[in-house]
């Protein structure tokens, strides 16, 4: 076994230093986001250390074995004394924490619409109208108000976030228009801020009888603002004598998007990758072939000054359209390629023998009855029905409820998140830290220890499966983290969902595990 650890001036760049023969206490770690960090120290006089410390650019560290990448990432920290140099590198996932992202993707809520004031556009006269956003966009005429022709417009508008990276591209809605003859109900889009570049995307003209439509889809060629409005286009000033709001235009089931394609996690993640690449192109790969589609529509996605990593973590937690929904993982491994896929789908299964176990088990993280809380399009808090797993209740002898806060106004998506949370939390996962001495596949073939990574599955083969009814949850677990230590050729694995709180210790398996 002969690992190398080499520093380059950039990913795929020129070799700066080969530390292989000099590095001490090399540790390489992985977690659910890919390569996590790699650290080591080496004896180095200060003048040599400063050549690394002072170097401009972002050096890239690669630890490899016989042509295969064991770990790679960017040099993050260099600390030196007069005799030693300590280096720490971070995996490529860290690039998604370097930048900020502001973008509108989709909304089904009308609460963010605002009235256009006269101070904004001279012929907008909201005071002449009866307007509300009570689960719809409603603009009605007001009794005894005089409306000039092609003037005195009533309009609700919605802006994209200031300096956001995406423009409006599609609006869908249902409409009901009951206006006097000659009146127009329309949808405008504006291509520049301050209501500049106005163009009509959709309109209907009343002939006196009510008009309606459903599932109207309007394409917007990149607008920064959209506005629903009505005005008198009859050719003569009209004084309305009816009751307030009896003549109106109403838009419901409104959805505004910044794409004509589906608003799904994979599309958002691809855009996030592009946004990061535009700022730090050497830190992310252009290939998106490892980004899979969870096929869940995301109706309400707005990001303001957020880290791409935080956004992607949340998207991975939404799950997919399967029954039950699967948790997804977002990670960067070899080649700086971003991977988005069902958790563990690319993981391997390893068989290990252990001579020591430290196990914690607690009901703290159990949740076998889950409901979701979300805010609907009217802005009201709504609680879904609770979903309870009867088998889990019978196993643990109690019903433990939990609420998951779903950041959506869509009931279907809220249910998806509820189901994903229940799936993940209905079974108590024991917490252990497992020192692994050797790694085998299902046929008993041995692999180097550093092959085990986060999201791989470990099966402890020297714990007999007949010991207890729940023993399988101890002998088999998914790895949340791994740390490989080259100087001792040893591997520590941390199972997913490590628990805190009071623990009990199991000693040597053959004398301490209770039956």
């Amino acid at each position, binding site marked *: 076994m002969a690992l*190398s650890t080499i520093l380059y001036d950039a990913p795929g760049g020129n*070799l700066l230093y*080969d*530390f292989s*023969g000099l590095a001490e206490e090399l540790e390489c770690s992985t977690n659910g986001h890919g390569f996590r960090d790699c650290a080591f120290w080496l004896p180095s006089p200060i003048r040599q250390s400063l050549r690394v410390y002072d170097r401009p650019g972002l050096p890239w560290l690669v630890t*490899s074995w016989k042509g*295969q990448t064991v770990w790679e990432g960017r040099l993050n920290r260099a600390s030196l004394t007069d005799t030693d140099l300590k280096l720490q590198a971070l995996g490529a996932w860290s690039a998604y924490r370097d930048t900020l992202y502001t973008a509108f993707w989709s909304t089904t809520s009308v609460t963010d619409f605002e009235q256009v004031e006269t101070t904004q556009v001279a012929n907008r006269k909201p005071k002449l109208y009866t307007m509300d956003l009570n689960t719809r966009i409603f603009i009605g005429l007001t009794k005894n108000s005089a409306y000039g022709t092609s003037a005195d417009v009533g309009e609700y508008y919605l802006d994209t976030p200031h300096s956001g990276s995406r423009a409006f591209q599609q609006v869908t809605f249902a409409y009901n228009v009951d206006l006097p003859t000659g009146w127009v109900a329309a949808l405008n889009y504006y291509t520049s801020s301050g209501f500049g570049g106005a163009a009509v995307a959709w309109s209907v003209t009343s002939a006196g009888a009510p008009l309606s439509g459903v599932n109207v889809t309007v394409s917007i060629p990149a607008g920064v603002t959209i506005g629903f409005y009505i005005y008198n286009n009859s050719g003569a000033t009209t004084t309305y004598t009816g009751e307030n709001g009896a003549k109106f235009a109403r838009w419901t089931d409104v959805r505004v998007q910044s794409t004509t394609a589906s608003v799904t996690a994979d599309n958002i993640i691809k855009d996030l990758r592009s946004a990061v690449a535009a700022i730090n192109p050497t830190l992310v*790969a252009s290939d998106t072939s490892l980004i899979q589609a969870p096929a869940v529509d995301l109706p309400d996605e707005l990001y303001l000054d957020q880290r791409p990593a935080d956004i992607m973590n949340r998207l991975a937690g939404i799950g997919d359209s399967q029954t039950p929904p699967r948790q997804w993982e977002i990670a960067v491994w070899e080649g700086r390629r971003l991977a988005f896929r069902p958790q563990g789908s*690319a993981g391997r299964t390893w068989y290990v023998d252990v001579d020591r176990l430290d196990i914690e088990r607690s009901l703290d993280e159990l949740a076998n009855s889950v409901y979701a809380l979300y805010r609907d399009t009217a802005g009201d808090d709504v609680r879904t029905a609770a979903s309870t797993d009867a088998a889990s209740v019978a196993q643990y002898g109690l019903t433990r409820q939990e609420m998951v806060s779903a950041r959506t106004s869509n009931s279907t998506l809220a249910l998806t998140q509820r189901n994903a949370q229940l799936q993940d939390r209905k079974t108590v996962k024991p917490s252990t830290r497992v020192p692994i001495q050797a790694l085998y596949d299902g046929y008993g*073939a041995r692999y180097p220890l550093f092959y085990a990574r986060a999201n791989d599955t470990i099966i402890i083969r020297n714990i007999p499966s007949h010991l207890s009814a729940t023993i399988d949850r101890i002998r088999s677990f998914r790895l949340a983290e791994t740390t490989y230590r080259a100087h001792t050729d040893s591997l520590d694995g941390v199972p997913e969902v490590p628990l805190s709180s009071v623990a009990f210790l199991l000693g040597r398996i053959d004398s301490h595990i209770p039956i």
Partner: protein
Amino acid sequence: MGTILRLTDGSTTVNFVYNKNSNPGYLIPRDAWAPVISRLRRSTLGGRSPYEDVIEEISVMVLGATGAQLLTNLATLTSLVDQAVQWTQGDRISPVKLEFQANGSLLLNPTSALILGRADGDETSGVSLKIGFNDDLKCFATTIRLRLWRRGQWLGATDSSIISSSANISNVQSTTFPLTATVLSPTTLSLLITGFSNSTTTTMNGTLLYAASTSELIVVEAETLAASKFVLTADATTKARGSQYLRYTPTTTAGDTSSPVDLLGLISTTKLIGVYALVRNNSASVSYQVRANATLGSLMGTGTPPTVNGQYTTVDGTSTSPQVVNLGTLASPGGFARLSLTVIASATGSSLDIDYLVIVALDAKTSGVINLQNVVFSMGASNSSATLAISDRSLTDLTPAVTLAVGTTTNYVTYTDDVYILTKGQTLVAMLMAPAGANFRMANSSGTIVSTQLSATRRIAYLTPGQ
């Protein structure tokens, strides 16, 4: 042959074997020293000897006809040790070696070990020594304890192999050493590459694979994996091996598996293999996930041997030129019999070409893989050859190096992986997967494929220099 024990930088020497006439300055008391025997490192990091560095402790009497002479001799010894420390710190001075040959040794020359510096308790500095007159030796004397870090292995004379015959690049070549090394020995591998056109520049991103025998490093022509959607295709222009390659043309994105091929010639006892492929993605927008699958060998027993699948490797559209792709590692408790490939395309409408596969047995310290990046063969008006060298530098430097020499110009090469090559036995085999530009194999401006010849030089290593 009498005992030799000396500290030297090649110019200044401190000889510890006392001779009243020729070497009266130093003496090691009888039975006061025997060399430490190193052991294999537990650390898996390469780049250096696989044996632990050790502390050599030698009790030395420093002598002098006068007190001043004694102090001069002591200063000479101290300076050499200081020089070893400075060299380790990167000063541009010669390294210091400890040379030793036991009494009665059959070796023609002493063995050497690099000195890396002082260990705690070394008395060549920082202590006040008692100097007295030794009645037996009739001179001034003081005894100090040398404690020095040295490389674990004793390295003997160089052993140069017989250069292989010339062959087209990307063939497995074999070279034979005259002597047999019984301990893993540091080796410099040299590849003479000939047939370049004068005044041309060729850039290669390639992979060098090496092993201890031809049964540990085999080439499989990809055409032997032909199946539906994996079609044998003639190559007239891009220097494919055998003038043909395998073309995978997907009709869906569900993935397809090639026909399996027998791994003829692969050592049956290997339990860990690496699979490397030379491929070309013909699309800048389509990515391919490629995986090697191996049917385990006959050592698994009777019945239908199982198949193990490797991990998928992504071949994206970043490059539409031939490139070496690592398809990962496969392990077996009982050898390997057959190999196939599974390929999944991200979209249809394009193709992936596979020229050949190289399988190397990885479960030996005498096999390895080195990726070479941006190797520029810049030929002058009178140059048509280059020498690629992976040098162990085991007695001259702390780290090995990879260089490319063209004429009188030598440049360092960027690489990945451990380049401290070790050999035992008498054979070294190697192969350079060398795509360049649009070609699967490097060729000159006339389209003739360049040739290679393999040779190697090693320092035969010993754990005890008593042979």
